């Protein structure tokens, strides 16, 4: 039994990778970059592989999704704040990045690649820069809803004619949390509260994530759903009977959900991090994301967008102060817990 502690130490040490000298690895292999990615892996992995091929810098990625099954990368970044492990955070929506900026997790970096990205999509202090956006869309089942009957505004989802036929993702999480906060900013608290009360009375189905919304619409469990362009497009490409409407082209504007990229404060590989950020903000990456199944809309009007969606200069995006909207998320979450009975 005297050997038992030694055996335990051996068992731990024999785990692959254990005992490797990370500091030495840092010094010996500077051509590494660690990126935490919340953009769906099916879309982000090819982009990162291209980066590896072009630069020779090895990418070590941690993926996640916005589905309500994990607590997400933002918490990992917050927990690692005192001793950063990541170099770059690539987020698929603004809320988490803004929370991280607020908590001192991010470092400023003004990328030269972002010069031609509109100012509204850049943090003046350089803590984040946006690129390629998804659009929040109303998805509809084409066998159950004719194209001409599909709603044109998010507010139409509370119309009694769609009673028990609407699905949305849990508004406390992911891109839906930002969208509902944006609605509160755009409509004001009173009107927004009223809308969600009517939505609740209309029997809205609240599900685990945007892809679940899409699947329910495809299966006809719900005729309409509020989700993202990439979710719907994947189903369209797969031949599913689903269509989408970009809502609120007239009125408050089309809700857009750009990717945000940021450098991490105390990043172990700052130079590689800058190279990665420059790459992600390049027109090439916007073009790749536009051509991919994600059908993301480039923020530069000069970059060709997806064939199935209009160019950014042909519609009015919802005008948002991202910081102000993100600051409303916690309050809106608490309001909606009560209103929607979450």
């Amino acid at each position: 039994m005297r050997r038992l502690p030694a055996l335990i130490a051996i068992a731990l040490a024999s785990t692959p990778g254990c005992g490797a000298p990370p500091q030495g690895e840092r010094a010996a292999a500077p051509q590494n970059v660690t990126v935490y990615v919340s953009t769906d892996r099916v879309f982000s992995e090819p982009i990162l592989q291209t980066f590896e091929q072009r630069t020779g810098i090895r990418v070590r990625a941690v993926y996640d999704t916005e589905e309500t099954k994990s607590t997400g990368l933002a918490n990992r970044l917050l927990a690692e704040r005192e001793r950063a492990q990541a170099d770059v955070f690539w987020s698929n929506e603004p809320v988490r990045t803004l929370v991280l900026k607020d908590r001192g997790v991010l470092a400023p970096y003004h990328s030269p690649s972002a010069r031609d990205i509109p100012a509204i999509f850049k943090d003046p202090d350089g803590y984040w820069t946006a690129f390629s956006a998804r659009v929040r869309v109303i998805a509809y089942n084409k066998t159950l809803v004719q194209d001409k009957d599909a709603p044109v505004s998010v507010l139409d989802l509370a119309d009694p004619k769609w009673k028990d036929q609407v699905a949305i993702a849990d508004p406390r999480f992911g891109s839906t949390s930002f969208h509902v906060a944006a609605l509160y900013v755009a409509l004001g608290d009173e009107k927004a509260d009223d809308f969600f009360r009517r939505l609740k009375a209309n029997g809205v189905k609240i599900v685990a994530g945007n892809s679940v919304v899409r699947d329910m619409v495809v299966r006809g469990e719900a005729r309409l759903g509020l989700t993202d362009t990439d979710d719907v497009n994947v189903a369209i490409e797969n031949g599913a009977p689903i269509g989408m409407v970009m809502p609120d082209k007239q009125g408050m504007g089309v809700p857009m959900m750009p990717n945000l990229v940021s450098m991490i404060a105390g990043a172990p590989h700052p130079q590689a991090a800058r190279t990665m950020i420059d790459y992600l903000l390049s027109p090439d990456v916007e073009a790749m994301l536009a051509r991919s199944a994600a059908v993301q809309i480039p923020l530069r009007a000069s970059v060709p967008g997806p064939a199935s969606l209009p160019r950014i200069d042909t519609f009015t995006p919802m005008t948002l102060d991202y910081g102000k909207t993100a600051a409303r998320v916690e309050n809106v979450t608490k309001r909606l817990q009560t209103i929607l009975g979450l």
Partner: protein
Amino acid sequence: MKLAVGVAWSVFALCCVYPIVWMLFGTTGSGSAEAVARGFVAQRQRDLMANTIGLGLGVTALAVSIGVPAGIVLARCHPRRVKLARFLLIVPLALPSYVPAFAWIVVFGVRASWWVYSLPAAMLVLGFGLFPIVMLATEAALRRVPARLEEAGRLVATPIRVWLRISLPLIGPSLSASLFIVFVLALSDFAVPGLLRVRVYTMEVFTAFAAIYDFRLATLVALPIAAIAALASVAALVFARWSSVGRVDRGYSGTTWRRRTQSIAALAITLLAVAAVAVPAGAIALEARGGQSRFGEAVSVEAVRNTVVWSAAGATVVVLLGTLLGYWRAKAPERPAHVAEAVWVMLFAVPAAVVGVGLIGVWNRPGLLGDMYRTEAVVVLAYLARFLPIGALLCGAFLRRVPPGVEEAAVVAGASSTRTFTHIFVSMSRRGLAAVWLVMFILMCGDVALTILVAPPGEANLGVWAYTLIANAPTSEVAKLALMQMGIAVLPLAGIALLARDGSEQAW
């Protein structure tokens, strides 16, 4: 032995307790015990907690209804006759809970009836996934019930009376422990309730993390779940004490049915097992037929390797340390032993996300700890933090079955405490400890919540790998991934089943 046990307790304190303490006192956040207590008075939180407890009780009841009869059949038949059935019936336990939930939605979702997305549906899906724990515990315990006791009982009493008065009390401690584990696992799950739109209390923990980013609040909100688990452990203890009529000595073999009865029972349970696995697998396979095969080539060998290596290393370390802690439990006075068990139970009920974030806070710092954090060893540490409490509980349960007389004889003969431990306790409990290793391995194989938080960049186990791929995939592709995951989860089980010989099958 004192040194070894001291080391085990130190590792336990560092890996299992310290992260939770750090979450409560080492983090900043708006959460306070008063705020949580105030919130608990609100109707909404009471409703959520009622749903959670209802889910836990429903799942436990279902696991008993399926697991106990299945365990009886397995125990009463010759191991060779029920080898296939046992193997198939364990498969649901090896699957991440989203797989049966997904199968459920594929089969019934299109009907969109109220019951498809409901509390009873979540009970069914989770109960189906967790009943093998009860089944294995029932079988293992029944095989140790001396045949002579039941035979003597049958001379004067009906079979039902023999079951209620002799068999059930003798398997009571094992059964109550398995019921408790099922209850706690159901209590802390939110993947299945989330998919089936059931509002449960664990979502409060998730909300504190993912919507408010408040570590302290998330931990405080998790405490009521831990408290309920502790209450459940008291109930399990009371049941075990009420039912326990004495120790079951090793070396006895349990009753087996007559050959003809065995044949019929074995055939019936094999058919049931085939149906239990084939129906969901078939539904998913049908769904997987459509669509482009975008992920067909995406089986990650690396993820499979990680799953097997991390889980094997984690299960081994948990059983090593759990055996030492269990040995302490077997020898300790009653009161400290019960306190230790209560602590183990409460820690096991803490949601994985709280453990994971706490682990990062504790281990991601300069020095040796930080160096380990950057390696794959952190995954093993995370599994240790999550599963050592339950591992210690289970190992303790097996070690306590060693008759005191055997140990006393060894001591009288001059054996040292170390020799007594290795040659008496470990040797006589080796099959039970092997069963604990298997359960730990299976639970670790299916873990996503913890692994996704701590796995080093560029590394993932199969669960995380599949999970990060399925988010935006069409249903047909999710079905393909679910099938792959089913296949790979079954591989280690198949290996163990193939390696098992008739004698070693008793280890189940």
